[in-house]
């Protein structure tokens, strides 16, 4: 285990020689991990506040979701469709597994493994975005964002989560590009593990959003 050595240099000063220390670190030892964790904290706060707003606005309605008068025939208790988001839920929860493998591959410095994992994750990310695209239609959600406060808040929750997905997919893509173009190195290994953390968080957030928008509306 390399460590910093306290010694006396040629000029007779007491010095702490850190040249023996590694220049890589993983997890909470790496500053980037902290940057990532803090950004996740910021976003968690945002998600929590949006969800809190959801329940705050709910108090203003006697029925939730309210009837949808725009369509013919109008809808009473127009809960959003469950099929797509449930597929998303299953997909994103299951996708934590390949993400985990990728994460582990990165820790092992297994370039092929990381590449393989990133391809899978990129595909999953794109699939999620595609699913979200189909999900974010008034025909599924039953409301437009400008119909009433209920419509506004559910679109906002889904849109917010969509930006997380977009961000994740973009990161999978750029990471993969880098590894294909250059080669795998510990810095990008660290990045892949951080991306893993971010993805787990995105999945957890979706569980929360799903619970709020889809399950919450049914009670």
């Amino acid at each position, binding site marked *: 285990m390399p*460590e*910093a050595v*306290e*010694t006396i*240099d*040629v*000029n007779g000063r*007491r*010095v*702490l*020689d*850190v*040249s*023996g*220390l*590694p*220049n*890589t*670190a993983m997890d*909470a*030892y*790496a*500053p*980037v991990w*902290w*940057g990532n964790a*803090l*950004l996740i*904290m*910021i*976003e968690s*706060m*945002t998600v929590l*506040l*949006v969800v809190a*707003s959801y329940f*705050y*606005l709910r108090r*203003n309605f006697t029925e939730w979701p*309210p009837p949808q008068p725009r369509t013919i025939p109008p809808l009473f208790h127009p809960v959003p469709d469950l099929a797509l988001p449930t597929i998303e839920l299953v997909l994103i929860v299951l996708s934590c597994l390949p993400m985990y493998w990728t994460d582990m591959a990165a820790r092992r410095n297994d370039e092929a493994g990381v590449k393989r994992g990133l391809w899978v994750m990129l595909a999953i990310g794109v699939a999620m975005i595609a699913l979200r695209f189909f999900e974010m239609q008034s025909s599924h959600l039953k409301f437009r*964002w*400008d*119909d*009433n*406060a209920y419509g*506004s*808040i559910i*679109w*906002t929750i889904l849109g917010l989560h969509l930006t997380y997905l*977009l961000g994740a997919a*973009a990161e999978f893509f*750029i990471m993969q590009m*880098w590894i294909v*173009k*250059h*080669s795998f*190195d*510990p*810095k990008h290994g*660290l990045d892949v593990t951080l991306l893993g953390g971010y993805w787990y968080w995105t999945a957890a957030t979706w569980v929360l959003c799903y619970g709020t928008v889809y399950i919450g509306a049914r009670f």
Partner: protein
Amino acid sequence: MSEAILHTETTELRAPAQPEAVASPVADELGPENERLALERTWRRPPGFLGWLTTTDHKEIGLRYIKTAFGFFVLAGILALHMRVQLALPKNTFLTNDVYNQFFTTHGTAMMFLFAVPMMEGMGIYLVPLMVGTRNVSFPRLLNFSYYLYLIGGICLFTGLAFNMGPDMGWFAYTPLSGPQYAPGHRMDLWSQMVTCVEISGMAAGVEIVTTVFKQRAPGMSLNRIPIFVWTQLVTSFMIIFAMPAITLCSTMLSMDRLTHLKTHFYNPAEGGDALLWQHLFWFFAHPEVYIIFIPATGFVSDIIIAFSRRRAFGYTALVLSMVATAFIGFGVWVHHMFATPLPRLGQGMFTAASLMIVVPNGVQMFCWLATLWSGRRPRFELPLVWVIAFIVVFLIGGLSGVILASVSVNVQATDTFFVVAHLHYVLIGGAVFPLFGAFYYWFPKWTGRMLNTAAGWWHFALFFIGFNLTFWPMHHLGLRGMTRRRYTYPEETGWMTLNMVATIGAFLMAAGVLVFIVNAMWSRRRGRVAGDNPWQAGTLEWATSSPPPSYNFLYPPTVRGREPLWEPEKEAPVIVGLSREKRQVLSTTVLDAAPHHRYDLAGESIWPFFLAFGVAATLMLGGIFNPWYVPGGIAVITLALFGWFWTSPALRERPSAQPHVAGQPRLWWLGRRGKSADVKSKDE
């Protein structure tokens, strides 16, 4: 992107790994001078406009933050003078109501969002790396990004004002007045996008500071040895991280409510929205915001008191814990801004209790300062200390009027009157600007290498202190006599004229004080007395390097043996060697004990952060004000910038540097350097 660079680097990166050659004490034959030259080459920012634009030096950006924020302070102050002139006489016609509304809104907004918070961030950005003994912040490019986003946001606000598009609904922009129906045009859109810009920038700075403090402290600077100012910055940054999402969220919701094609209903009571939702979200941010401004100021106070009473802080742990407690409780008192709204009485009682409780940690801080002063050496009345003493006086008044406002019954009388105006100015000017001026006098020598002129400083102090009290003390009376805030005129029979006139005179005295300070600063930075490294014989690490510090901060980064490292009897704490001279490398330490852990390469200059800031601002401003269809385009720009940023950030393992520095600067370096030295002419030539 430069193909050439990428290509060569690719091939080099694929070369088999070799043990890394770093400067070792043995190799350091030429000693400090060689080290200095090498570091100079590595850390100096590239010359020219592009270099200026892309800089990642925390000192440069920190000072820019400070200067920019001070600029907004002056502008907002000028607006305040106009308002004071308008209010000096009843039924005055100096300003029209429309202009007055724009002025007071811009004044409040600029002071809160563009001056106070960024100023504190700027101070932190400048001082924190120095105080923890490292060479730069963890994410230097993020710093560049956050500064430009802030700058663009601020410029937009004042440009808007100049073009009759100044926001005019008050700095807390209560819906539905700020909503689409009652605030026509784009004034409030501009406001909310400006707020979003500045808060994103603030959050970036918060992340920056937390990581730097957690990961880059000098070896030996365990958590219980962190200078109090750094603690304040740490706590503040955490508060930023938890509080600011609320304002970005609620201002985004406001924009969406107002925006063409979106027109959501978050705040439309008819369609199930709620005007109170805005108030909850806004105050959930804006009350902690007060502490975000105030807590760093207590850091100035603590450090200045320690330096002048010449003893280590009395009750260091108590100070830190009370600060943390303040931060926690600060999140639980937002409702006291809403006591006049129809809320359940029980809730109000709880929030009263919480609001009173916050006095306790603040009281503890106050007692610890007094105890430090009491038990230290008899202080010399230098200007920094004088400002801090004035702070204690003035802030105490503000705090006590805050106690008065914590009571529901009294609050419903006093809220939204000039009593609150007086209170908040006593708290914010007293709690932040007084310490800030003290900090200016204290750290000015560090920034410029020269002392501020003392005589002018005393004039500044006298004018400002007297002016301040003349301005704001009468407002307590005005408020209790029924003068509501934000009114552009008042009838004569109210009898408010005399006090208003006094306040106006005071405002001009304050302005004169600030003017004296500006002249003093301009003059002193070139002609002031040379300060030397540590003019106050203070004990924290920023004084361990030259004034102003070199681009790499410390020739040999220090290690720490105590809480006030420069005062430790054992002067011989070892210095750090073995960091790469060719790369912008810093030592990363562990979070709790600050034990050396690994070497960490920082990113170098790049145009992408600026590009990203511009992209984000343009997306927000165009997409959030005019048409949401600009957003996809903006996202494309943002993505491109992020790709560029990522692509050019440093890899952890790089090719061994065979030669001390790269010969010849690549033509397109500004697209992104990996923190390696550019060939910059050294000073000796």
